[in-house]
């Protein structure tokens, strides 16, 4: 990472305020590592290398440690994602109730596999562990919204709301 690229990235005041607030919640401010990254991700969709460095510089948490948590937790994205992220629950209750069919249709419809983003940048498709929506299996989550049960033939209707 070159110094210029790092310097070119500036955290917004809101991001800084969020990071400050989270850091004030712990006796060791370094405990807010994940929240600090999420403050950036919330606004930019993902955490770029530049963002990681910027958060490190701002928070005083070493970049290596930030990368250690960023690569540990599922919800921190270190690669760009589409405008909307679809999480499909792949855990047992959903699997019992038609997960395979749902995924097949979804992949066919979007023409992508897990871990990929549609050509138009609209959706990124990711698997998720149990979404806690087992009584509505098979379940999925798009951005912040839970959906379920979602049968293959209802996909169009569900996806419609996300442009």
């Amino acid at each position, binding site marked *: 990472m070159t110094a210029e690229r790092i310097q070119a990235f500036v955290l917004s005041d809101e991001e800084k305020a969020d990071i400050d607030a989270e850091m004030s*919640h*712990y*006796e*060791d401010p*370094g*405990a*807010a*590592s*994940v*929240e600090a*990254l*999420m403050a950036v991700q919330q606004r930019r969709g993902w955490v770029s290398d530049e963002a990681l460095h910027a958060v490190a510089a701002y928070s005083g*948490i070493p970049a290596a440690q930030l990368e*250690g*948590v960023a690569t*540990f*937790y*599922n*919800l*921190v994205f270190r690669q760009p994602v589409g405008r909307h992220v679809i*999480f499909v629950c*792949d*855990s*047992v*209750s959903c*699997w*019992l*109730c038609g997960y395979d069919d749902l995924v097949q249709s979804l992949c066919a419809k979007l023409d992508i596999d897990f871990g990929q983003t549609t050509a138009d940048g609209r959706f990124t498709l990711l698997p*998720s*562990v*149990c*979404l*806690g*929506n*087992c*009584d*509505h*299996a098979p379940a999925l*989550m798009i951005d*912040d*919204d*839970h959906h379920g049960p979602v049968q293959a033939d209802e996909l169009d209707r569900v996806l419609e709301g996300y442009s």
Partner: protein
Amino acid sequence: MSTTPLTERIRADRTPMTLEEYRAAGGYDGLHQALAMAPTDITALLKDANLRGRGGAGFPTGLKWSFVPMDDNTGLKYIICNADEMEPGTFKDRLLLEGDPHQMIEAMIVSGYAIQANVGYIFLRGEYKLAAQRLRTAMAEAREAGLLGRNVQGSGFDFELYLHTSAGRYICGEETALLSSLQGERAVPRAKPPFPQQVGLFGRPSVVNNVETLCNVPHIVREGVDWFRNLSHSEDGGTKLYGASGRVNNPGVYELPIGTPLREVLEEHAGGMKDGYQFKAVLPGGASTPMLTRDHLDLALDFDSVGKAGSRLGTGTLVVIDDRTSIVGLLRNLEHFFAQESCGWCTPCRDGLSWVEKILAQMQAGAGQPGDIEVLEQHVRDLGPGKAFCAHAPGAVGPLDTALRYFRDEFEQAIAAHATAGGQ
């Protein structure tokens, strides 16, 4: 007096009560009573009530709290709510969090007071966005009303409550990994002893309890020990949020006396199997609980009874397996989950589970090989309690162990299929 204390204030559409509504429904009465009590008396109350942890292990809550050093004033103590709920098949805490956030907050204040913790955290899994939003709103109301912050309700007791939204990973729910995670580290479990009550968050005395466990506390304070014990059909006090998912007619969460028989939950509350599906087996309390079969339908769902039957009550949310489901496929799904969610700290879990998953994947594809069952059995042995570092790996092999015992023929067929097809 209510028989469904935890859920009675939850509306059908789950829109939560405002602070005012909650108070009108008797909310924060428990807190008032608690603040008038000696903290240790609350812990004693829980012991008498025989409240056992609802997060999966069933550890007696009063006993757990009694290990907190009450004379240690050299720094902060912490009360932490485990709202990580990521065990596949489990969705009970979500109901409490979304449906009655003030109950959660009240529970945190009372529990914090009981162990004299001045700071509380609700460790919430990241995907529970709605719960986060509702908790935030309720916390703001509570702070406004002087229920949180300095000098709670003029009691002289200070209590700060923070919501920590996690960024995902099942292991965060393991109570010591949760502490690492709250400290902004990788969620790697810690060795015990010392227990968190002595050396917990930031090295300070801390108590971690499940959402449902904690939510019981203000009710016990308010209604008393006898009421609580009478709610139950077993030695364990209180109700239990049972749940059911899979091919049943009424999947959902049901608050019932703890010790309600499996058959009753399954048939009366979950509405029995869907048309065209037969009951085959059940994971009684989430993905990490060993299977029960038709033979166990009359089992009372309390911690000890389920334990005696070779399984665990776990979270009490049934994952119902129907006759059209392949056990090998099911196990492959489960072990995929456990292998993915291994934190990577200890060798057996990190490298053993991915081997198990790979074998099951080949078996599922009809490409099992002679000797595979023995390798699986070896993993069941070598990933057991005390062998892996934490309870994740033992949890992972519990269902595998029972599957190999109850449905061995399905595994044998997965190998035979390959052999007949010319594999070796």
